[in-house]
């Protein structure tokens, strides 16, 4: 007779495996597009325009933007995976397979978030390999780089989950990425240092969580950041804690999934 912990582990790994199998099965929609898009970023912003921009914070422009481009791919894919997978499960009603099973809500959340993070990290790895065709990508602080990319993937997977809980149509899972996530990503210091901005916009940028992720991740590669790293970590951990608590509250309440 398996213990409760063993049953929970099997349930979690089943959900995670199903999520991974899903995004690998549809790789032309999930893994290929970011590789192509990010290659274009490196060609256009890195090689063609970057060579005319010169240096940013003491680094070649392509070296400066590479960590941000990798991070952009990670957070977009972690978010999109959970948002589309969980919403599809609601739409096709196969979320009921999970709701009737003896799985605590925190494990349902953990399974989907781990699945989203797995896609984000795999896409991040693909984009990193693509970037090596354009830059050498030195790593100054390996542990920092890895922990930041994992935490960022988790944070945006949680965001995708909450989006999917509220969504009532496929349009509603496209609205947040288009109108909130993309602007925040582009204004999150991927392509520039916030030191270049006027004082007001520098202060405004500090409200953008992506700024902290990109800077801490860039610090892992290049050893430079616009903001203190410890502060960046605490902001990200606070966001993860807040989003986890909110997602669990919605699941326990049955918002969007139980009548």
């Amino acid at each position, binding site marked *: 007779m398996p213990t409760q912990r063993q049953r929970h582990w099997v349930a979690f790994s089943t959900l995670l495996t199903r999520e991974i199998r899903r995004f690998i099965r549809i790789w032309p929609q999930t893994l290929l597009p970011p590789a192509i898009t990010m290659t274009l970023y490196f060609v256009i912003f890195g090689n063609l325009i970057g060579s005319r921009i010169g240096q940013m914070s003491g680094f070649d422009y392509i070296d400066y933007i590479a960590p941000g481009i990798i991070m952009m791919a990670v957070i977009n894919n972690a978010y999109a995976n959970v948002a589309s997978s969980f919403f599809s499960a609601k739409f096709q009603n196969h979320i009921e*397979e999970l709701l009737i099973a003896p799985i605590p809500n925190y494990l349902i959340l953990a399974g989907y978030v781990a699945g989203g993070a797995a896609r984000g990290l795999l896409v991040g790895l693909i984009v990193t390999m693509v970037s090596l065709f354009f830059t050498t990508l030195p790593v100054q602080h390996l542990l920092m780089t890895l922990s930041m990319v994992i935490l960022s993937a988790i944070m945006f997977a949680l965001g995708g989950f909450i989006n999917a809980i509220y969504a009532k149509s496929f349009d509603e899972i496209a609205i947040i990425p288009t109108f909130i996530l993309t602007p925040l990503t582009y204004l999150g210091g991927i392509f520039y240092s916030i030191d270049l901005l006027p004082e007001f916009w520098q202060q405004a940028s500090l409200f953008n969580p992506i700024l902290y992720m990109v800077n801490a991740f860039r610090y892992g590669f290049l050893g430079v950041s616009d903001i203190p790293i410890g502060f960046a970590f605490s902001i990200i951990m606070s966001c993860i804690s807040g989003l986890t608590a909110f997602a669990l509250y919605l699941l326990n309440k049955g918002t969007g999934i139980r009548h």
Partner: protein
Amino acid sequence: MKALSIQNLTKVYDNGFKALDGINLNVEQGDFFALLGPNGAGKSTTIGIITSLVTKTGGNVTVFGIDLATNPEQAKTYLGLVPQEFNFNGFEQVKHILITQAGYYGMPAHEAEPLADKLLKQLGLWEKRSTPSRALSGGMKRRLMIARALIHEPKLLILDEPTAGVDIELRRSMWHFLEQINAQGTTIILTTHYLEEAENLCRNIAIIDQGNIVENTNMKSLLNRLDKETFILDLKAPLTEELKLDNIDINQIGPTTLEVEIKKEDAINDLFITLTEQGITVTSMKNKANRLEELFLSLVEKTVDK
């Protein structure tokens, strides 16, 4: 032991609609139980609450003595559900669906695989094991839902209209399969619109209407309440004149077809004696309608009148 006990269960939806008005229901272990009612009566809401798909407004549900509200994880391990609507991931393969569902119940893939193989063979889905579920026919999807509900070997199986839209041959083979698993000890609760199905399979019955249980008894005693039966008689030759018999209502519904209502206390022999005396030859006789259907309609009509 009670497989299911429901006490004072109420459900009011957000729009104010009261779907359940304090129902009480008990199902004994090993029973084959019918939960019947017209559309919108509260059957699916009741099943939804038992299986955690719908949140209750009030009352208690226990499954094999385990309170669903205080210990949902243990209570859920006893339950299997065959829902009314197809709810698969259409892109997943048939066997993956079973093994994934077993995993959600904490059963590792190496343990689930032989069980999945056995169920797929029993339910005639073995050849389709690697097919995405969306490519299955309606009948196969119904059988896959039964296999999925049984993969973790539940003690209480709830079937919400499992044979809807299924042809007669397949329906009968599903009945046979359900009788087998019931004989092996699985308690079954069935909702259906085919009252013949409930009459043939179930030992006990509850009828729900407008959120209330209007009848809860065993099938035999319910059927014994019928005070008359209706028969259809096919005649060898058309009637030449109107036929009238004492104590028997006769209605001519075709040149060679009669509809005859006979009270339970009256002998059917009297009818044939009279017909023979008048030179009328009967070539065949059958029940007009399923007996449970008549009772069901009278019980539901009563609540509408109230």
